[in-house]
């Protein structure tokens, strides 16, 4: 393997080049081209009409009072609301499920497989299912709520219910993923630690608080970061369940996250330059967030 120290050996490049070519065209080049496009008034259907506008696409997003400003920052607010209201459930429920399954009881692997199952479905499938469950007419949920004499709100078209439907669908869909990671980390904790805890008279709750949680911390931090980023990318569920509705008086929708806004701006409307500028801002925020967390996390280690 130590050949080619003196003379040039092309063979290794034959191994990496096929992938590298695609990487350069679809990761390396767009890294810069996205920024470049954001300085233009660009519509892919009419490339001849492209005009250089400098920072205009960005200025539009920071000029209070304009529709674009309102729509964009509203979608950022909606994204934040979704992150804040979904992430706690996406951490605590999987943590609870993993704890429940982290026993030697027979049959737990069957439950593990069932709890994880929704994750293999596509966003379109789960959105369609929950959209139907939450329907006011014929919907499963309101049928049972009505039968129990409880209020039956118009889930998909009024607030805060529309946001709740998206959170519920998302939690049901993805909780199994974090559960599996928690479970794998829990199973790495040596059993004699629990044995020692038991000998010292710690009950199940105390063992969880004083043994499981501290040892789970690195994984916990990692999962919180990845879950926040995943929630930031919300798109398909509101697209198919609420269409971003209910509409807001100044434009934009109460369940229209920033990814849906970028989709509308660049692919429903013909403003790809503006959509590229929005993407740059969102990407910067996400990168800053990851970096800060990474630093904090590393510092504490």
């Amino acid at each position, binding site marked *: 393997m130590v050949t080619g120290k003196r003379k040039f050996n092309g063979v290794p490049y034959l191994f990496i080049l096929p992938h590298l070519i695609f990487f350069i065209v679809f990761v390396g080049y767009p890294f810069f081209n996205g920024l470049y496009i954001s300085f233009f008034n660009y519509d892919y259907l009419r490339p001849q009409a492209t005009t250089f506008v400098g920072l205009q696409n960005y200025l539009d997003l920071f000029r209070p009072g304009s529709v674009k400003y309102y729509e964009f920052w509203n979608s950022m607010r909606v994204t934040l609301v979704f992150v804040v209201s979904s992430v706690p459930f996406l951490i605590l429920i999987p943590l609870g499920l993993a704890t429940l399954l982290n026993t030697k009881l027979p049959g737990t692997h069957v439950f593990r497989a069932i709890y994880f199952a929704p994750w293999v479905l*596509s966003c379109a499938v789960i959105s369609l299912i929950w959209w*139907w469950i939450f329907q006011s007419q014929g919907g499963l949920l309101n049928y049972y709520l009505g039968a129990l004499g409880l209020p039956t709100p118009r889930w998909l078209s009024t607030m805060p219910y529309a946001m709740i439907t998206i959170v519920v669908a998302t939690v049901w869909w993805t909780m199994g993923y974090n559960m599996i990671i928690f479970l794998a980390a829990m199973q790495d904790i040596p059993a004699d630690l629990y044995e020692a805890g038991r000998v010292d008279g710690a009950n199940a709750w105390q063992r969880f608080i004083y043994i499981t949680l501290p040892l789970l911390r690195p994984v916990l931090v990692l999962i919180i970061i990845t879950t926040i980023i995943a929630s930031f990318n919300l798109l398909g569920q509101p697209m198919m369940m609420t269409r971003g509705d209910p509409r807001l008086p100044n434009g934009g929708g109460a369940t229209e996250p920033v990814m849906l806004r970028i989709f509308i701006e*660049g692919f429903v409307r013909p403003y790809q330059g503006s959509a590229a500028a929005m993407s740059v801002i969102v990407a910067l925020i996400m*990168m800053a967030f990851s970096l800060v967390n990474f630093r904090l996390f590393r510092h504490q280690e």
Partner: protein
Amino acid sequence: MTPPAMPIRHSEARYRLRRIVGRVALYALMICIALIVIIPLLWMLSTSFKLKSQLFSREIYWIPKVITLENYTKILNNPSTPITLWFRNSVIVATLTTVAKLVLDSLAGYGYARLEFAGRKQLFGLLLATLFLPGVMFLVPNFVTVARLGMLNKFSGAIVPALASVFGVYFMRQFFLSIPKELEEAAAIDGANTFQIFFQVVLPLAKPALATLAVIEFLGSWNDFLWALLVLKDRAVQTLQPGLRTLQGAYTSEYGLMMAGAVIVALPVLLLYAFLQRYVVESVATTGLKG
């Protein structure tokens, strides 16, 4: 010594009873959660076999009064929502993407794991760094590239950009690093060249890793929604996921039809999962932990 034995036996029985009660409670809880997970899927299935007239009745029937296949025959034969064609398209796109990725990523993974060339460390570091970049920044520029290359509304538009992904390269590299070097060294002493070593010694060992990667990549490609929605717009080239959105728009309040569509899209994945459950779950456990 008989009298003190009594209370011990008594407390032992109580301890056992508590254990049994605790276990029953645990199983009851696990079953309840399993029901919450399964009920929406059963509701999808149940709705897909119902006539429209049964959807909005006063009573809800989990098992339809009249079990009908009408929804399935209807969506399978409606030319404006060609779901069989979409199914075929999805199979083509997901299969080609998976196969191409396995080839590219195992080659590159081996290159970065074992072969020596100038700038290997830096290049791989660069590749890894891009894993942390948010996908949103590639959306518009990659769409523009695909449009310029004339790949809009062609399967290549969905397949080719996906091949740039770094995850599989990283995954295969980690695997190649984990196998002992001695086998390759022995083959090299026997006079095998790099390609022979890779194809005849290393790849046969990599079957489990390749299978895991294949499952992950196939699932990812099959379930891809946003990119397929952007680049495969014509109904003739659409795949199933954006197809479901077309279906949703095409039939107002025909939930039976839509759920039949959802069943057709979900079933292959659920079957795959049922058979390869171990692979899927363990791949998430290992790749998820490493980030």
